[in-house]
């Protein structure tokens, strides 16, 4: 029921770097994949799995299944998954599919079709409330999937029901398949939209583990559902990756892998 012991900021930063390193190794097996998702969300996953979330008791919903690589990496680094399993990522017959599915371990719900996760989290929160359970429901969302109307149906309804144990973390990395989110449509002002829908909102630098931790600490401070808008970069701020690389689906050759690895190892040291 209890998760990993709560880590301090230095340890969380190292955990985030190790999540990126694991993800780089996984994507390197095939030479391409959803690496940007792990690079952008590493600190969010480190904070959630590094003490905020009580794994196996609180609910965890991963709405954009393309981020499942970050879940595998975080789980391997926090003792929830045998790290050897990561070598099967994306391979035929493996449970560690590149886009999360019903076979995905370690989460209560993973969606591959975008925009459905928050509704599922609302279902978990309603069930916990009806049963009188002391249980937080953490839902991880990406900014791109907020183009789906269902997200806003769920946001409106969660606030109406005052589901105060529902916590959404939004990886606002401004990245989707066709390019920057703001080149496809305008989501901003994102935090104000969630506020207008009746949520308590905190906006943070999503690569700042201390800011994330402070944000999660006030999650139960009101009757309204709680959203953290985590501003991130799809390439995780890594200098080793040229800024022209398509962050949604990264092609990773040996040279790029080596450059990323040495930068991350320096961060961990």
């Amino acid at each position: 029921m209890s998760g990993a012991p709560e880590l301090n900021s230095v340890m969380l930063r190292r955990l985030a770097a190790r999540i990126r390193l694991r993800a780089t190794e996984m994507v390197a097996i095939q030479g391409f994949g959803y690496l940007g998702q792990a690079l952008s969300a590493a600190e969010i996953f480190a904070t959630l799995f590094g003490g905020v979330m009580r794994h196996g008791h609180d609910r965890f919903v991963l709405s954009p299944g393309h981020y499942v690589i970050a879940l595998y990496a975080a789980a391997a680094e926090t003792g929830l998954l045998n790290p050897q399993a990561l070598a099967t990522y994306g391979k035929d017959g493996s449970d560690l599919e590149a886009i999360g599915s019903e076979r995905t371990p370690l989460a209560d719900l993973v969606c591959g079709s975008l925009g459905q996760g928050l509704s599922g989290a609302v279902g978990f929160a309603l069930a916990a409330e009806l049963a009188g359970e002391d249980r937080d429901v953490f839902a991880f969302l990406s900014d791109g999937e907020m183009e789906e109307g269902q997200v806003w149906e769920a946001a409106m309804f969660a606030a109406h029901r005052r589901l105060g144990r529902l916590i959404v973390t939004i990886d606002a990395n401004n990245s989707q398949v066709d390019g920057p989110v703001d080149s496809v449509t305008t989501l901003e002002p994102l935090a104000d939209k969630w506020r207008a829908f009746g949520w308590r909102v905190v906006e943070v630098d999503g690569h700042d583990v201390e800011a994330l931790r402070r944000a999660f600490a006030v999650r139960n401070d009101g009757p309204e559902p709680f959203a953290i808008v985590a501003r991130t970069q799809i390439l995780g701020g890594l200098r080793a990756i040229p800024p022209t690389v398509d962050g949604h689906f990264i092609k990773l050759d040996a040279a790029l892998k080596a450059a990323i690895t040495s930068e991350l190892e320096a961060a961990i040291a």
Partner: protein
Amino acid sequence: MREPPYSTVLKPYGAALVELARRQPEIICLGADLTRQTETDLFRDQLPDRFINIGMAEANMMSVAGGLARAGRVVFVNTFGVFSTRRCFDQIAMSIAYPKLNVKIVGFMPGLSSPGGPSHQAIEDVALMRALPNFTVVEPSDAIETTLAVAAIAAHPGPVYLRLKRGEIPVIFEDSHRLDLHRAQIVVGGEGCEVCIVASGMMLPAALAAARTLIENDVGVAVLNAPVIKPFDGATVMAAARGSRLVITAENHTIIGGLGSAVAEVLAEAGASAPLRRIGIADTFGEAGSREYLFAKYGLGTQDIVDAAWDGLKINRPAPQARVVELSPGAYAPV
């Protein structure tokens, strides 16, 4: 079986659901702003803690239902059939069907039974739901069977689509009627009759009336009640249809993908040679209008079944006319 005109009752589904939910605290009732219309005002008034109105947001409702079911609840989701299937198909597929969750989707106003026109007429809902892996699809034909269906689908672990007529529900079967989610039933005639009619839902009374007319005119007829479109009881259909000269399906639904298709698949896979005539909506959208007007115009009447039999058997004299049943208020008879 009773005789037409049939007496009718109100809210057999709503009453059965409340009765079951009193005994099963894990049952949750979801709605989308159609509470009275889906008979769930009874649930709202009597078990308010377990009634949740999601509002007009069917996509959200289906995925919320999935979350509740993952947390161990048995979730009944209620709205009109158009909104509970075509509007939120991906949510049903991914949030309910694929994970095989204990969600029962109840869709009201099947086929051309709604006066509201194409936006409110669920003409392809059975086809959609039948195509989804893990789904069971049930369409009762009267109030007795509806009551039985509520308990049966609650006891069945996994997703179900229950297709229900709205409003006054006829009582066709005797109180001793039984529903088995794996069986169709021969309700008229027996195996090897000249004509075998397979019907579901609102077309069962029409099939029974057509059979009466045909039998009076010396044509041997079997009628099968097929309330479960999936899994489909092909064995009983084949037992009844083997030796028949003609098989007719009757459904208040497009002839593509529903009961007619299920029977066609069974006959073809068995290598059965009897010709098949599908009575149903002929690959077209409907329009606004009364049930009487629409069923007659779109070929869902008793006479349409009689004519299909006459034509299929190539009988060389004019088809007999189906009897018109006089209706008093509150009574029901097929068109």
